[in-house]
């Protein structure tokens, strides 16, 4: 078992699926069905393999596991992959959401289903690659490569303003990321390697750290997205097809959160410490500003998109507290947001498939015709608010706890965000689900089909399960987090004592 390159299998199995899909003739009778089934089975198989990997994962070991290291470009840039407690959950999240996305697209995608499925499977490979990479160049390759399929997914199968949105998405992200590329090259010049395991122990020159940190920040801030570079997200979400939004909210945003933890904190601890107030300020602005904007939205998807900006604000807030609770909270918040916001987008997609509008005013009283839908929708809305008993609560609570221990003012502002989240979420739920069913086109709307129940119930179950019993997540995250924090605090304390000595002289 240990000899098997299980990580590489998980990364590249979807590509094998792409090969399979490309030889299936979609024009033959039942061809479309075959395509969907193949993609579904490949992604499900990948999920099963990743679960096997989770079972074999040694939680007490803080080193990288399932490591593979092959020669690639030169001795400094290699194909080096491996996972630890921080990345494994995000990989599982990716492989878990992928079959759901494919299942969710069974009926909503009307044309070019083959290319659609191929784009999704390529995207899966690239996303998993991001979380596994232990080499900066390899990481950049996967990180940027993801733009290509996402650009096509939004552009081809999106809504009316899809061209504008997809260009905005692509160019914003690219513009942020190219600075990271320059920083990666500069790190390579400085140390002769881009191997992350080596760099995590290497103490980069402190004056360079600030520049590198800003370059990486430019990329991750756009991707996560932080205020004021968040404007691509609502556009991209609104125009993307349902499954595209699910992947965007569920996984793509997490790549940046992961990047902050792994690179900004791990490689540039001194600079992270220095810039933490900046991150705090931007996060607080993001939380409050995005929540207020969410309050006045007319479009359901846009509302959820703005709520994503606010929720990711909690993630960045937690990461830069440099406390164990903060980073654990940020991780759990990411997992929880991956489940809840993905589910919310699916819920919007379900009603959109029925009456083809996302305008909140066009709905009302759905509970009368769709009781099951109203039930699961409520669970996810509660998860989004962060109600105790849902996974959203655990993450936000840990983050707020950590922020409180660092700075009370920031904690007060952040808590305001929770109240605002309750306001817009409940408002959305009331407008869509409650009331009497008066709208003409809603009179004969149907409740969830079997396929939709299969999609939504696992997500609902996990939302509540992790709300009551987050221990399995914490068990995995904690050793890696403690290890990270001890590394960082060593570096930071060292710097502080040096400056202290210098000032004394």
């Amino acid at each position, binding site marked *: 078992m240990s000899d098997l390159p299980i990580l590489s299998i998980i990364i590249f199995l979807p590509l094998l699926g792409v090969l399979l899909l490309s030889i299936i003739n979609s024009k033959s009778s039942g061809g479309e069905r075959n395509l969907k089934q193949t993609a579904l089975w490949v992604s499900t198989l990948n999920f099963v393999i990743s679960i096997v990997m989770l079972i074999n994962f040694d939680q007490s070991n803080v080193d990288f596991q399932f490591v593979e290291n092959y020669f690639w*470009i030169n001795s400094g840039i290699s194909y080096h992959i491996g996972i630890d407690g921080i990345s494994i959950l995000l990989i599982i999240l990716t492989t878990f959401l992928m079959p759901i996305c494919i299942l969710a697209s069974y009926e909503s995608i009307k044309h070019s289903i083959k290319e659609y499925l191929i784009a999704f499977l390529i995207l899966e490979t690239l996303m998993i690659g991001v979380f596994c990479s232990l080499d900066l160049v390899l990481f950049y390759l996967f990180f*940027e490569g993801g733009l290509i399929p996402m650009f096509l997914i939004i552009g*081809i199968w999106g809504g009316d303003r899809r061209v504008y949105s997809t*260009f905005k998405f692509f*160019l914003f992200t690219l513009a942020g990321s190219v600075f990271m590329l320059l920083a990666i*090259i500069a790190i390579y010049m400085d140390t002769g390697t881009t191997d992350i395991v080596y760099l995590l122990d290497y103490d980069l020159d402190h004056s360079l750290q600030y520049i590198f940190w800003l370059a990486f920040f430019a990329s991750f801030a756009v991707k996560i997205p932080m205020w004021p570079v968040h404007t691509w997200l609502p556009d991209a979400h609104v125009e993307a097809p349902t499954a595209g939004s699910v992947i965007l909210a569920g996984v793509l945003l997490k790549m940046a959160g992961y990047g902050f933890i792994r690179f900004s904190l791990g490689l540039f601890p001194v600079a992270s410490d220095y810039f933490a107030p900046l991150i705090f300020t931007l996060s607080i602005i993001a939380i409050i500003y995005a929540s207020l904007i969410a309050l006045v939205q007319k479009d359901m998807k846009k509302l959820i998109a703005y709520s994503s900006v606010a929720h990711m604000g909690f993630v960045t807030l937690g990461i830069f507290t440099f406390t164990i609770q903060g980073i654990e909270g940020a991780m759990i918040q990411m997992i929880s947001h991956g489940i809840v916001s993905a589910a919310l987008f699916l819920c919007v997609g379900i009603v959109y498939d029925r009456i083809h509008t996302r305008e909140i005013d066009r709905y009302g009283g759905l509970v009368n015709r769709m009781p099951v839908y109203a039930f699961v929708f409520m669970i996810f809305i509660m998860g989004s608010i962060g109600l105790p008993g849902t996974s959203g609560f655990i993450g936000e609570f840990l983050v707020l706890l950590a922020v409180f221990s660092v700075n009370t003012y920031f904690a007060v502002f952040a808590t305001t965000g929770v109240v605002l989240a309750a306001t817009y979420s409940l408002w959305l739920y009331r407008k869509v689900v409650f009331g009497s069913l008066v709208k003409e086109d809603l009179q004969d709307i149907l409740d969830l089909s079997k396929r939709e129940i299969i999609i939504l119930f696992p997500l609902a179950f996990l939302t509540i399960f992790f709300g009551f019993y987050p221990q399995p997540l914490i068990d995995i995250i904690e050793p890696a987090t403690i290890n990270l924090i001890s590394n960082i605090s060593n570096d930071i304390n060292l710097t502080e004592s040096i400056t202290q000595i210098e000032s004394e002289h």
Partner: protein
Amino acid sequence: MNIFLPILPEISIFISAIFLLLLGLFIKNIKLIINLAVVTLILAIFFVIYQPIGTAFNNSLVNDEFSKVIKILILLGSLASIIMYHSSRKDLNIDLYEFPILILLATIGMLVMASANDLIAIFIGLELQSLTLYVLASLNRNHLASSEAGLKYFLLGALSSGLLLFGLSYIYGFTGNTNLNLISTTVAPGNIGLIIGIVFVTSGLAFKVSAVPFHMWTPDVYEGAPTPVTAFFAMAPKVAAIAVAVRFLIVGFSDVAFEWQQIIIFLSIASMVFAAFAAIAQTNIKRLMAYSSIGHVGYALIGLACGTEQGISSIVIYLSIYLVMNIGVFSFILSMKYKGEHYENISDLSGLYKNHPYYSVIITVFMFSLAGIPPLAGFFGKFYIFIAAIESNLMLLAIIGILASVVGAFYYLRIIKVIYFDEEKHSFDGFNHKSLHLLIHPSAFLIILFCLYPLPLINIANYAANAFY
């Protein structure tokens, strides 16, 4: 015999060109002539590979690692252009047996350029190449745009040759030598006459590689010339001219690198930034590719501005990948035909993917690669260029370059947008010419799979750069 060994490829192509010219007078079988030209070029590639390293004619031509690699690139570019010509000669109304022969003659000029180590050899090579290119540009003489392109190219080209020659005369006057190695021993900083010479020569060469501000001819010539000729312009002469610039500046004037470095940096920044913005408004795909080539030359010049071994190696990597991408894109442009008529507007591609999903994927791959998006080969070209720039502390150049690449991404994306997101317009009946398949699939294959095993090209590039250090 030994004296001819270093110029064996040039001689073999020359003999073949003369023979084919005579053959063409008596035989009307153009296909035969094309085939023989192809065989000649393939033979020449073998000659280049197995040729020993050495010098000829009193060190005025050298055959080192760098020239060998550049020559192979040039020969591949010429080969691809002849194949493209073959696929479209009937439709484009250029069914003339002179075409392959002119390509062969231009190739000789470029091979001389690649090994020229003497001011006179540089000029001879450059002129042999340029004069043939003027004729090639106006090959379709019944077509107004083609004649105009040829004339424009000739006038501006003659001007630039004059500038070049003027500069060469200054350099000769102030150093007393024409051989680059000998010049390098007499070069000293602060010699104003020498600087004037370098400025004029660099301007002349900048014209040949179409770097801004000497780029004005490029869009018109690219648009007016028949497509196979445009493809040829975009590939081989660019490689040859950059090779001349590299050898001229690195071998002859590395002692005054700080003097010419500023010129190259300016040319590089101007080309990258100007091309990125100017290309946005283009509607003709050949014109767009002209601006694209201006931009790419700007990136290649970053490597030259570094003047280091890593810089030269990155130029070779960049040019190789650029060549492969251009082979692919121009084969694709040649396939844009409907009922025997060729289309060149970007809007003609509208909705292409409904009818030709496979070819849409291929052109998408090329466009993303030209834009430098990983994991495609174009990314690695830029990656190495930026490595060289940061190694030489040219941080500002790297930052401007990378920002220009973001702007540049926009116009490549626009083509993809037209193909995928717009409503269907034409159903092209192209993509069925056998010889184009020979080009388009291997180049797409190389672009996609380059990331898996980049080592061979990197080794070749390091081998080439080794020649100067």
